[in-house]
Each structure stands twice: as C-alpha cells, then as structure tokens.
C-alpha cells in the first residue's frame, strides 16, 4: 500500500509537469495547427537560460525570471514569427518537419555552446520530506505539484473567466467566427504562443532539479507531451491535463508492476488504443467532418 501511494504521488508530480507541457502543446495546435515536435526541447532550454543567468551572478529567483522572460521572447515571439508564420500556408506536414529540425537545432546548440554534460540545477525548496502512510513525499514533489496546480488552475481561470481568455478560446475553436465577432485573432494566436512559452519555462524550472539540465532532456519530455495531448484530447485544455496525469501515473505503475523493460511501450499502447477507439481523446470533442 505504501509503495502504491508512493508511486501515485510521484506519478502525480511528474504527470502534473507533463500536463503543463501538454497544455501548451494543445493550445498551439488549436490556434495555429502547429504540431510542435520541439516542445520537449522547449522545456529543456529555459533551464539553460537560467543557468547562464546564474553564471553571470544572478540569484536563483532573478535567474528564473530572466529565464521565463527569455523563453517568452525566444520560444514565444521568435518561434512564432520566424518558424511558424512562414510555414502556416504550406500546411501541417512541412511545419512538422521544421519543428523536428528546430528540435535538433536547439539540442545541438545547447550541446555545442553550453555543455554536453548534465548540469545540477537548484531546487525551489529543499526542506525536509513528509511521511504519509509509509510513503515518503519530498517537499520537492509537493512544490512541483503545487506550482503545477496553481499554474493550471490560473490558466483555466484566465481562459474561462476573463474576456481575454474567452477571446483566446473563441480563436482556438473557430477562428473564422471569432474574426466575425470582432476578436483580434492574430493577437490571440500570438498570446497562445506566449502562454506556451511561459508554461514550458515553468515546467523547466520544476523538472530540471530532478532530470538535471541536459541537452537530451527534451526527447522524452516531448514524447510525453504528445502522448498526454492525444490521450486526453487534442482539442481540449482539460483533456491535456488529464492526459498528463494519466501518463505520469501509468508510467510509474507499469514500470513497477508490469515490466520495466517495456515501460516505454505501455503509454504507446494506450495511445494506439485511444487513437483507434476514440480518436478525439478521452475528453476531446468530435470534430465534425463535412463532405
């Protein structure tokens, strides 16, 4: 029982981070049909922005702010204007290729210009651990979970309760209609890129103490984001959250109880089943196809 709770809590903490990454991923998809194959590298990179800031003497909190700001500029604005916008008219596949190339570019850039080796990364809070029902829960996991929940709830409130959020939602669901209703669609699309940049930066701060900052980190994280987004529902923010959490927990439980050699296969099998049985994802809406 204790070990089950342990797995559940660890899975939840990782899953919450996956959810953050997946939410940004689905937002980009909804507003601009961008399947960002570099999303994992987007999470890998901010940690290095922060490390660079710290190498220049910034305290950790300041470095984090610098990291988030740099992400917004590089992974939000530059990404949209340099990579995505010129590609949009060419359709989904060329953009996929571009983002695969971007992933490679970011990885290699970090490797060549920073380091090929894993770097230790400071933790947000390093106070003690808690014992619940025999399971050990580190303050780190709780902080991860807390920050992730606050971020997701904040995002949810922003999207649903504010005028700006509703305009973004309208843009995501039906850009044509949104334009007719007077929503500044182009601006809203840009905002989703900025939101994604902030989300990946937060995810990076949360995950790097555990993963250690390394140029290859994006490989698994990007995959996790796709899986979470598809399992939960590609066109729903809450679907991505659910998908992320399912994935985190499933990964831990299957590694512990089924097979560690095949642990990477279980989420993929779930993915295939979901796509074939319920392609819109667990919480997704069916997108009516007209003939």
């Amino acid at each position, binding site marked *: 029982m204790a*070990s089950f709770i*342990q*797995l559940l809590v*660890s*899975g939840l903490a*990782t899953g919450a981070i996956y959810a953050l990454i997946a939410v940004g991923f689905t937002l980009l998809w909804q507003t601009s049909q961008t399947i960002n194959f570099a999303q994992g590298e987007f999470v890998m990179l901010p940690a290095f922005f922060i490390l660079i800031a710290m190498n220049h003497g910034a305290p950790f909190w300041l470095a984090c702010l610098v990291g988030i700001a740099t992400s917004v500029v590089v992974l939000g604005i530059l990404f949209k204007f340099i990579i995505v916008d010129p590609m949009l008219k060419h359709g989904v596949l060329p953009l996929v290729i571009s983002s695969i190339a971007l992933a490679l570019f970011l990885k290699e850039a970090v*490797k060549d210009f920073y380091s*090929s*080796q*894993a770097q*230790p990364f400071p933790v947000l809070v390093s106070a003690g*651990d808690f014992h619940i029902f025999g399971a*050990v829960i*580190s303050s*780190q996991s709780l902080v991860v979970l807390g920050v992730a929940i606050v971020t997701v709830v904040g995002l949810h409130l922003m999207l649903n309760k504010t005028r700006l959020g509703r305009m973004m939602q309208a843009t995501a669901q039906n850009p044509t209609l949104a334009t007719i209703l007077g929503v500044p669609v182009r601006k809203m699309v840009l905002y989703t890129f900025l939101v994604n940049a902030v989300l990946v930066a937060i995810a990076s701060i949360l*995950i790097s103490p*555990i*993963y*250690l900052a*390394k140029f*290859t*980190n994006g*490989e*698994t994280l990007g995959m996790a984001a796709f899986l979470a987004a598809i399992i939960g529902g590609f066109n729903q923010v809450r679907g991505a959250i659910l998908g992320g959490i399912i994935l985190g927990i499933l*990964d*831990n*439980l299957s*590694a*512990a109880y089924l097979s*560690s*050699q095949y*642990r*990477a296969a279980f989420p993929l099998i779930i993915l295939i089943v979901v796509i074939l049985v319920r392609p819109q994802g667990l919480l997704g809406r069916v997108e009516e196809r007209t003939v």
Partner: protein
Amino acid sequence: MLRKSLTLPATIAAFAAFTAAASAQSTATSVYMPAIVELSGGGAVSGTNYRDGMILAMEEINAKGGILGKKIDMPLLDSQSEAGIARSQVQKVLDNKPYVIMGPVFSGSVMTSMLLAQQAEIPQIVGGEAPAITQRGNPFVFRTSFGAQFSMPKVANYVRDGAKAKSVAILWVNNDFGKGGRDSFVKEMASRDIKVVADISTESGQADFSADVVKIKAANADLIFVYTNEEESARFLREAKKQGIKTPMVGETTLLGQKVLDLAGDAANGVKGHVGLTVDAPIDAVKGFAERFKKRFNYVCDHNGMKGYTAIYMVKHVTEKVGKFDSKAFAETLHGLTITPAQEPGILMEATWDKNGDIDRESFIGEVVDGKQKIVATLPKLGLK
C-alpha cells in the same frame, strides 16, 4: 526530368572531395593514429574524458620528441555515441592507413567497428567493457580497462566477503554497457549462491527513478548493485535518498566516478564499490597525473581519462619495443606483454595484456565519504596470461 542533371555536378564534386580528403596519413614526421570517441550523445561524459586523457598524453609525448622521433597526429572524430556513426568513422580513417585506432569507448560502437579494423589488420585500442569484445577471437582489439567478465568477479567477491550479503537487488541500464555488466554479475552471483531478488532494467536517459526505487525497496535485499551510466546513477541515488533507502549500495567504477559525485551530491555518501581505475588511487604516479590533468583541462579526471592517457603511453611503449611503426607487429607484441611504470612511467600502474586483448592490473575498493571517493583497499592483479 531535367532536375537530375543539376544534381549531377554536385555529386561529382562530392566524389572529388573524397579523393582529395586522402591527405592525412603517416608522414616522415608524424604518425597517424586517429581517435573515434563519444564527443556527443549519451556517451559524451565518457568520451570527453577519454579524449582529454589521450590529448594530455599526446602533448607530453610530442613535447619530448614524439614516438621514435615522430609526432603523434591524432585527429578526433565524433561517434555521436551511435554505433552506426562510429562504424563509418572507423571505415573513414582506415582509408588513410592508420598505425593504430584509438577508441571508441562505448561497447556497442566497438562491436560494430572492430570487424573493420580486424580486416584491415589495424590494432584498435578501445574503452568498451562488454565481455563479448574480446571473446570473438579478434587479434587486433585491445582493452584499456577491465572487461565486465573480470571486474564482476571482483565486485562479487566483495559482495560475498566484504558486505556479507545473502541477497542482492540489481539496477542496470538497458544498453550494451549495462546489459553486459548485468549478465556477468548475475552469473557471478549464481556461482556464489547469492540470491538476486530484484533485477531491474532502466532506460538510458531515464529521468524518473521513483518506480525503480519502490521496487528495490520492496525487494528487501541485503545489498543493491547499481550499474548505470553517470547521469542515471546520480538520478537514482537522489531518488533512493529521497525515499529513504538504507540498504548499502555497491557499484563498479562508474558509480563512484567524479561526475556521479558532482551530480548526486550527498546522496552518494556511503556508496561502495569496485574501482578499476581512479585518480584517488594511493599511487604517486596517478596523483601526479591527476594534478596535470586538472591543470590542463580544469576538471577532475575520471577513470575514462586514465584509460585514454595510459592507452597512448601503451602505444608509445609497444612501438618503441618493436622499434618501428608496424601495425601487425604491434598487435603480436602486445599479446602477453606486461608494462611496468619503471619501463614506462606514463603507464601509471603495471598492466598486462593477455592473448585476447584483455587487460589486467591492480584495482581498488572505494567508498564515498563526504562527497569524495576514498580508496579503502587495493585488490591484486588477476594473473591473466
């Protein structure tokens, strides 16, 4: 259809480029011994250490006039830690008739490329530890560290006699390095009647070890044997500490390596293990080397740095013994040869190569105390022939 004709000139240009590239060869003043190492990808830590060790030795030797009066010419080629790329890099350097080939470090990369060097009858000085490398009857492959089939008995003896464990849990990384070690270790455990109560495979590059630690905890073994690459070892140690594992942990060389200690911090304290090569060895020559290395590259060398360094000196010694640059004679001479620090100070520790290309030398039992590796015992040579 015309589109093809435009690509043709490009193709021809490329072919011309190959032919032109055949410039790097042994000349009157230098000896061509290229190095194929893991400068990027998953093996970058091992590869860069190996490379820097070789560079240090090369610089020292060249400063003193080289080998038999020829300067060492050692271009570095990146295998990207991928076997296929390592193979084509080896193929590439073979075009230029190397004297010997240095590297690669990863066992998988060694296995894919060693057949080529064997066919060309060029000695290959490798860093890989998978047992299979020296079990294929290849007379041109030589190790710079213990194969797992020799280090694991030493670890196993320690598990039985030192730690007095009756049951062990094994955590290993599912790549050529980890699988080779795991297989040898399991065999040694069986012959010593020690029960393997958990046998956990992890992924290369894995970040989340909570499920693995939960499983290890549940196994309730007397001892945990950890055989993963540097970063994964560090992540595991951190997670194990978090979940409060008190079971003693034992490893082989890597687990007590400098990079692991840097990354794992105090989570590594108390870890013990067999160390094939270490700069913390209580040997003056090694300490001197470690200082020179630190001064030159500004980081603490690990066992792979020592492998690279001693490999170059081994080449120097054997060549001088043969008296000329003859690749075949080199391989023949090295089989069964023992080199002592008295004969060649750069070898650091007495080493013997047997008929298969396996290496034999003293090794150590180490322990991590306050984030530093401490050598607690020295183990004698195995006595291979």
